């Protein structure tokens, strides 16, 4: 690959880097991992044969010197040969993508955007962002949509990730900060309940923070569950009933904390009455979790000096995810945990900037600072920072799946600009998504490699990544971190910020779209000032010097590691109990589709496989998609280890190798979603509040594929989606 003509630009700030010196060897730029929300600290040293070298940092408590295989091998992302280094465009839909100049690519984007908007109005153009984008990119993308495009149609893949936890936390606490305490508090707790989190695979160094008193609720006996003192093997789609049953027990067996409830909450009476219908035997029948285990879980939590309840995607990615999280928050509140030092409720953010990415306006219903776009005061504040009339700001737009589903339909957007996302792999019901993308007049994708989505695009814009750029990320504990440039980007690529800036200029908005991260961050600070996620007191210097947990309302404010100790962020300072009720999955099993499918991650891959499928060591560790099947079910299907199995839902099918495991329930199969295929099957039923799709449970049937039992497995594992090629994109 052609390597840098450009040199590393000095980071535009004067700060003394933490002395990264070990054995007198300069360890390179102090930055963070390109993958998950734990944002492990790492040094990246550019000058090495075979590419940049990664070593872990000890000064970031989230990992404190630990890294998983993804982190250790991240340097390979900077040198592997699949990197896009030139804009690509096709003459027409039938023609292949060919290299074009930046000038031509950007001019074609701007011209096509103008044409679509002239014909279909501002909302004819939509934007799709990502939870891996830096704060600066997320912010500028939101502003670009609202101001330069004047479109309401912007959302991002974090809708598929954090939206249920965000909605539930906001309605209970008035604030959505994943962990409202430093991650190091977790190790100090006596008991932690993880509901739908498999951190052993998704963020391995996080395991170091977990205490011995671990309870895990998960349909699978994951490696995380295997470490737990108590594993509640909940039926897919019934986490809400489990939480209600636990709360019922907590109340009737005297573990509720009346003094805390009285002093710090509202709404308990109504919730108490609502869970009277969830006696443990009823919850047992729905969830499959024995009453005795539920009692034990509540006893452990209720007698612990310090206890935490933490939810993950397993509990959240449902058409009732918001209510499920609310039910776990109700349990935490009844036990008196949130806002108490060493205890609390939290959620585990998924993507690298899944926290910051959900705060600064790339969400359909949101303005920077985690403000609501339908709040007149928020509109006035942000409009003033942007120098526009509040009346000119669009209102709320479609949520992620609704947006994808509407593309190219009557009244739906005709053009889509994608930044840092690969929805043709990561969205639910990808067959439909691919069909809608193909129906667009214009699809533009900015990415580092030719992802499955980029391969469908009319114009592809190659962009800088991770160690090639500056910016800030906000990790799972609400701590703002500095991403530092370690190596020069390959020639021919531009940063997303530069791309947005250039497009804005071509669309007649030359002012207000700086292409440089620090300048964007300074504006983000002003736009977020006074909001829930207030970054106004944060500077690059302060982030480099030490831990900055938002909100930070002033430059002399120390930051807020534990925001709820004195009061919650609600108008009256009290947390809200809210009654919620269980309902079955949007699609339950029946005779035709008799098994549950649940999806998730494996350790060596990340999200849509964008980055990780291109790293040799990771592909060696996890080379291909599979379906995890219980041996009892496999026996009934006459399927042996490695056999090709056809998994079919009402929305599509995939053929993957069977992996037999007793870690899965016999009524459920599991597929990782890092490869095209799993999401062809998943159900886009949406949560009424968060608009989260139901990734974690749908009904499927299974058949042995590729010949009679005993025949060798067939060659093709997963057939490509319409229009997709074997590329990979960064993503979520």
């Amino acid at each position: 690959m052609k390597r840098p003509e450009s040199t590393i630009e000095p980071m535009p700030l004067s700060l003394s880097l933490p002395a990264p010196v070990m054995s007198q060897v300069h360890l390179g730029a102090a930055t963070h991992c390109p993958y998950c929300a734990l944002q492990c600290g790492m040094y990246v040293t550019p000058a090495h044969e075979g590419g940049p070298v990664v070593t872990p940092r000890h000064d970031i408590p989230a990992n404190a010197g630990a890294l998983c295989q993804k982190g250790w091998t991240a340097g390979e992302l900077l040198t592997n040969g699949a990197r896009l280094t030139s804009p690509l465009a096709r003459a027409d839909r039938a023609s292949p993508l060919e290299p074009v100049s930046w000038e031509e690519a950007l001019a074609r984007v701007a011209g096509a955007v103008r044409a679509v908007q002239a014909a279909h109005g501002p909302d004819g153009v939509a934007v799709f962002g990502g939870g891996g984008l830096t704060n600066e990119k997320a912010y500028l993308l939101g502003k670009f949509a609202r101001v330069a495009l004047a479109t309401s149609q912007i959302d991002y893949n974090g809708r598929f990730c954090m939206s249920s936890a965000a909605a539930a936390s906001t309605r209970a606490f008035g604030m959505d900060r994943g962990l409202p305490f430093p991650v190091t508090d977790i190790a100090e707790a006596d008991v932690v309940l993880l509901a739908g989190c498999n951190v052993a695979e998704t963020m391995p160094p996080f395991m170091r923070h977990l205490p011995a008193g671990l309870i895990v609720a998960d349909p699978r006996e994951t490696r995380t569950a295997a470490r737990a003192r108590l594993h509640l093997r909940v039926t897919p789609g019934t986490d809400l009933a489990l939480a209600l049953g636990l709360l019922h027990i907590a109340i009737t067996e005297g573990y509720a904390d009346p003094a805390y409830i009285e002093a710090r909450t509202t709404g308990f009476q109504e919730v108490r009455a609502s869970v009277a219908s969830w006696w443990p035997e009823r919850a047992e029948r729905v969830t499959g979790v024995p009453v005795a285990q539920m009692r034990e879980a509540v006893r452990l939590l209720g007698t612990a000096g310090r206890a935490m309840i933490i939810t993950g995607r397993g509990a959240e990615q449902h058409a009732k995810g918001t209510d499920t999280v609310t039910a776990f928050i109700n349990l935490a509140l009844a036990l008196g945990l949130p806002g108490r030092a060493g205890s609390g409720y939290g959620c585990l953010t998924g993507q690298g900037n899944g926290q910051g990415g959900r705060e600064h306006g790339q969400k359909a219903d949101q303005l920077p600072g985690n403000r609501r776009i339908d709040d007149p005061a928020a509109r006035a504040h942000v409009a003033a920072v942007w120098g526009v009339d509040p009346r000119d700001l669009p209102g709320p737009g479609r949520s992620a799946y609704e947006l994808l589903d509407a593309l190219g339909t009557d009244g739906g957007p005709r053009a889509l600009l994608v930044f840092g996302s690969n929805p043709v792999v990561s969205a639910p019901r990808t067959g439909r998504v691919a069909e809608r993308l193909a129906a667009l007049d214009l699809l533009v994708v900015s990415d580092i490699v030719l992802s499955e989505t980029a391969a469908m695009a009319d114009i592809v814009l190659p962009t800088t990544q991770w160690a090639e750029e500056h910016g800030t990320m906000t990790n799972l504990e609400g701590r703002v971190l500095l991403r530092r440039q370690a190596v020069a980007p390959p020639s021919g690529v531009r940063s997303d910020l530069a791309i947005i800036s250039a497009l804005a200029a071509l669309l007649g908005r030359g002012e207000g779209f700086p292409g440089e991260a620090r300048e964007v961050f300074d504006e983000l600070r002003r736009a977020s000032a006074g909001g829930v996620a207030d970054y106004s007191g944060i500077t690059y210097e302060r982030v480099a010097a030490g831990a900055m947990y938002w909100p930070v309302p002033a430059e002399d404010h120390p930051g807020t590691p534990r925001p709820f100790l004195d009061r919650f962020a609600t108008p009256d300072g009290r947390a809200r109990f809210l009654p919620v009720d269980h309902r079955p999955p949007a699609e339950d099993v029946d005779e035709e589709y008799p098994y549950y499918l649940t999806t998730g991650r494996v350790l060596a891959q990340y999200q849509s496989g964008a980055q990780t499928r291109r790293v040799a060591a990771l592909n060696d560790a996890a080379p291909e998609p599979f379906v995890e099947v219980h041996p009892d079910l496999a026996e009934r299907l006459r399927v042996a280890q490695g056999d090709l199995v056809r998994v079919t839902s009402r929305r599509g099918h995939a053929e993957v190798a069977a992996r037999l495991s007793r870690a899965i329930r016999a009524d459920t199969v599991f597929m990782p979603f890092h490869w095209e295929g799993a999401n062809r099957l998943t159900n886009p039923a949406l949560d009424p509040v968060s608009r989260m799709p139901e990734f974690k449970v749908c009904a499927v049937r299974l058949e042995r594929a590729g010949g009679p039992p005993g025949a060798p497995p067939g060659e093709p594992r997963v057939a490509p989606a319409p229009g997709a090629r074997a590329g990979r994109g960064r993503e979520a």
Partner: protein
Amino acid sequence: MRVVIAGGGMAGTRLAAEIRQRDADVAVTVFGTETRRPYNRVLLSNVLAGTASADQVCLPAPGGGVTARLGVTVTAVDRASRTVRTSAGDVEPYDVLVLATGSEPVVPPIPGAARAIAFRTMDDCDRIIAAAANTPGAVVVGGGLLGVEAARGLAGRGLHVTLLHHGAHLMERQLDAEAGLVLEEALTALGVTVRTGVRVSAIHPHGAELSTGELLESGLVVLACGVRPVVGLARDAGLPVDRGIIVDDHMRTADPAIYAIGECAQHDGTVYGLVAPAWEQAAVVADLVTGAVPEARYRGSRLVTRLKARSIELAAMGETHLTDDPGDAGGAVEVVCFSHRARGIYRKLVIRNDRLVGAILLGEAPTVGTLTQLYDRGAHLPGDPAGLLFNGLDAATPADSPLRMPDSARVCECNNVTKGRIRACWEKGARDAAAVVAATRATTGCGTCRDAVEGLVEWLSQQEEVRA
């Protein structure tokens, strides 16, 4: 539309909520004989036992749009004019009438029966608790589910309890003879004196008299002799009644404007005495009367009985009495049984055509969740059902020693390090864990494999010593 619900118990209250959830414009009026706000009758045994307070079992009051007439009973139905008459004297018109009149306790026709307290309502519960405070001993008549729960609850309050049952063994509707015996022994261990095969002939002011003439002295006699559907209203209105009010798959009586749900209804020959079917029926009626799901039908329920009694785990479902004797009337079934009476454990599966049709778990119920779901769904059972009786039987045998572990076994998941790689590392000269870690990055992820890596290094050292 005006919906009138006769009965404010668990079925009626649930129906009101279900209707409002589907259609906020329907006017719903619930008439209930009890004056208390709705409560969860299922949990009365817990209140009796003192493991839940009366306050804790209160159900949410029906929301806005529901008129709850507590303490007012529907006394007559005029089907021609589509009105009901109430104990308060009003005449209330309806478009849809739902009978949810529940059931009443069976009081045996014996002298002095009025001196005993039948256990059915929260008021009964209050009276029993008050009486229990003033007497050292109690007699519970009836060894079914409710009687066992009441006896256990009163024993938990420190009373000497005698449980009288005329059947040959306890809970004979749900349990086979051996399970009944194991349950009896469990109750005995908890301080309950169980007498089976006895008949009570009279209740005296100071105790219960058996048909043998024996007098059991007690300041409190609790009746748990079963319930019978309350069907008078329906019968008087000329609706077909058998043991319960006869309904079709719509839960509709012979009059298309009148439905019946819960313990007063008889569907396909069955009167259900548990709450789960009543709630399923309420959902069907709500779907139909609001038009939310016009094709909704009730097809009967599978029954799972869970005893709510501290320190006794008991789950029973389906056809528990069948045996695999060739002559058994139940047809060809397989029975899988595990019994350990010394520990109060009894487990039984009844299998027909590869599906679970009955089960008992007594003493401990580690697999109750799985069994209930297999039973509820009529799902296929695994080839070897033994794993359904014991937890952990199906866990893979871990490779616990470095010797037995294959070279391909992953020691460090986070960094994909196999035993083979660690061995290779050793062979290249790494002589301690730190050197192995530096070369392989094992242990640097979640850190949970540290012991395994150190163990392997130690084992490799010992191997070398042996060879040396």
